[in-house]
């Protein structure tokens, strides 16, 4: 029982970081119907940037987060304007190809800069943990989960309490309608993409402190993040949080009780099954358009 609870604790802690990383993916899909396959690669990129800051200047990964977020915001904005923007309006599967192409380019760039081997960030609290009764909470993960919650709450306020948030939501519901009432949809889309990549950056920075980073692992990351948002319902922020918790816990359970090879397959299986059995996921509403077409 203690072992099970411990597994659940670790799963929820991992889930919090996953939720933060998936929030950008679901936000980008919700607003512009673009499935950003490069999301995993951006996460690994943020982790590598954090790694470089740490190894060159000794900057603590958690303190690097604001800086990384700003840099990732800029990168997201540039990539959106340079590539993603041009594929909008063509068939959805074309946007998938473009973002997939971006993922490959990022993987290649990271391979050239940091090499195709694993890098780890070791801080003085890397191996420390907080013990409460019979349970232990790894300190890194505890801090990361706390930061994830803070950033998610900030994102929630941004979307629900600011003009920009209203504009983003308006653009996601009805693009031409938003255009007509004076929302510059093009600018909103670019900002949304950049914000999505910036929140991901926060998650990626913590990722570097939690586990070793390798360029080629972006496939696993995008699989995991896609599984999360597909499970929660594409475009739904609360859905992404719920999906992240489920995936985090399931992975921990699979590692502990089934075998360490299985977590690799879990996300792909979830994607496969959910998209076939319940394409709208947990929180996604089934729209009238979906039924007709």
């Amino acid at each position, binding site marked *: 029982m203690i072992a099970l609870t411990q597994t659940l604790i670790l799963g929820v802690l991992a889930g919090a970081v996953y939720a933060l990383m998936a929030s950008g993916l679901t936000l980008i899909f919700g607003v512009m*119907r673009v*499935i950003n*396959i490069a999301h995993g690669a951006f996460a690994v990129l943020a982790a590598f940037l954090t790694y470089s800051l740490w190894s060159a200047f000794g900057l603590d990964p958690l303190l690097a987060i604001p800086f990384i977020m700003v840099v990732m915001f800029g990168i997201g904005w540039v990539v959106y304007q340079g*590539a993603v923007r*041009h*594929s909008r309006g*063509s*068939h*959805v*599967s*074309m*946007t*998938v*190809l*473009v973002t*997939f*192409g*971006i*993922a*490959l*380019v*990022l*993987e*290649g*760039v990271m*391979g*050239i800069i940091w090499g*195709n081997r694993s890098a780890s960030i070791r801080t003085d609290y890397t191996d420390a943990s907080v013990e409460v009764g019979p349970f232990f909470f790894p300190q890194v993960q505890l801090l990361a989960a706390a930061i994830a919650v803070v950033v998610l709450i900030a994102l929630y306020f941004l979307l629900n309490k600011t003009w920009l948030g209203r504009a983003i939501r308006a653009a996601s519901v009805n693009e031409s309608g938003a255009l007509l009432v004076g929302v510059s949809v093009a600018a909103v889309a670019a900002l949304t993409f950049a914000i999505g990549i910036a929140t991901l950056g926060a998650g990626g920075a913590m990722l570097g402190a939690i586990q070793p980073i390798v360029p080629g692992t972006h*496939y696993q990351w995008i*699989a995991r993040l*896609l599984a999360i948002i*597909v499970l929660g319902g594409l475009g739904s922020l609360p859905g992404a949080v719920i999906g992240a918790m489920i995936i985090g816990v399931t992975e921990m359970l699979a590692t502990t009780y089934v075998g360490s*090879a299985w977590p*690799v*397959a879990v996300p*792909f*299986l979830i*994607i*496969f099954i959910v*998209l*076939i*059995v319940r*394409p709208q996921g947990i929180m996604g*509403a*089934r*729209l*009238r*358009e979906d*039924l*007709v*077409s």
Partner: protein
Amino acid sequence: MSDAAAKSVQDERRSRLIRNGVLAVLALIVVLFPLIGDASMENTMILALIFAIGASGLNIITGYTGYLSLSQGAFLGIGAYVAAILGRSMPDISPFVWMPVAGLTAALLAMLLGLVTYRSRGASFVIITIAFLFLVQFVATQWVPVTNGTAGITFPLPTWSNAVWGNWPFHLVLVGLLALSILVSWWVRRTKFGTGLIAIREDEGKAGSVGINAPIYKLLAFGLSALFVGMAGTVYGYYLSFVDPIGMFSILNSVVIVLAIILGGRGTLLGPVLGAFILVPVDAFANNYLGGGNIRLLVFGGLLVLLVVLLPKGIIPTVQLLLEKRRTKGTVGLTGSITALADRPLPPPREKLAPVGDTMLLQVTGLEKSFGALKAVDGCTFGVPEGSITALIGPNGSGKTTVFNLISGLMTPDAGEIVLDGERIEGLAPWGRAHRGIGRTFQMTRLFREMTVLENVVAPLRDFQFRQLGLGAVSGSEAEKAEEFLEFVGMQAYRDARAGSLSYGQQKLVELAQILVLDPKLIMLDEPAGGINPTLIERMGGLIRELNDQGKTFLLVEHNMPFVLGLCNPVRVLARGQVIAEGSPAEIQKDPLVLDAYLGDDYMLENRSGDGAAAKGEGR
């Protein structure tokens, strides 16, 4: 024939001759390539052939049918693995014996993947194909007793002497497979099967409503798309003499294949082959001279982005478009020019709308449909008498289009019965209902935009048989009949125009001709007079009357009241998802319930605010 026309025919013949000559020379070079090239060039050629076979196959589902798949590389790997597993246990048998087995295995698995298109399309389908590829790789890694896991399998030596024959056996078999693959692709394109696939690409819902059994079409297309690449996988495996999960199921293989069809031109016969013959040498160059690995990722990732952004149509269609532009420079297109709609006189408006008998061709009982919390159709009950022109009217959002969608099968009802000619049809798929005699048009016309008008009109199918798949797309008798219907609606002058280039009103007429091919018992028109000019409205009314005189029964949704009242009897009035009144036009005009429903919300705002929920969500 004028001089100019004769000259253009001559020009066309000459350019076709040049094209065929060039193709023949290229084909000869490919066949005899091992005589020309050195070992490294030969290696590139073999890979190019393999990827060309893969691309040509993928073109059937991506180019023709419109499903983009990143799992084509998986079927290459599956073919190689099947050969490896069989070859390992029976090393003395010729590798080419395993080829059909590998091809069929790949085809069956592809059909399994095709099953998911029943539920998912567009972006979710692409994601599923990526997941499929990784799951296949996972199985190859974990199923150690059969696949030998990450260690991979080494192939037995081929049964022929490598010193004597070199790569010739591999090369020639691949050339044969590619030729076969192109031939099949060419054949598919000109059969009913191919037209059906293109109809599915253009508009899958519409394809169903004109009688195309999409699931069977798609399953066959998926099977066909993987058959040859699975066979090529056998050769690939024996050529490399080793398979392992990382190399065989690398997603880059799938990327190269997808890139090939985008570069060459989706949906064209030779575009995918051309694409593969350009990309594989680029890949070889990146591998040999630029250091491979990360550079390869940069090259292919960059190409993917650039191609989709800069050349989304691909080389062949872009060149064709340029040539076409040059050829037709200075000539005037048919669309937009004034042509007489038809000289045929229309039947005069009737003095009195004849009452019709009591036999109901269509009977709808207790139909219900909800979208989330919104009950769009709520216990709808009405009949359409045989031989009548029945109207279904009601305020915006009263559920008319949803009722249409429920009857034609685009949506399934939550409850209720639909009986056509004594048979319950609410459980049938759209094409099943089309085969039983329901033809419908759409409020916003839904023609297959990239097809010509004539192709649109011959696309509908009145039944489904396997042998029909192989028939020519536009056969003589069918074309004749289709032209008859086009003439009937006055659109024969536009038979070769692209459907998407027609005006909205013209599209409505073509859509009517299109469903007439189904020879429907019940013709359902969604706003036939909406958004078109008065002359055309009159013409539409005349056509409906004429068809009705010939014995066709109609069900119309329409907002144009003079049109409805002068044409239809009986009239059913829908409000809040229920039929609130029925009767002759005269009765309906006087019915207080109807007045209430139409004047509704504004009129009652003062005393019953908040009860106007029915006006939500205009039906599409």
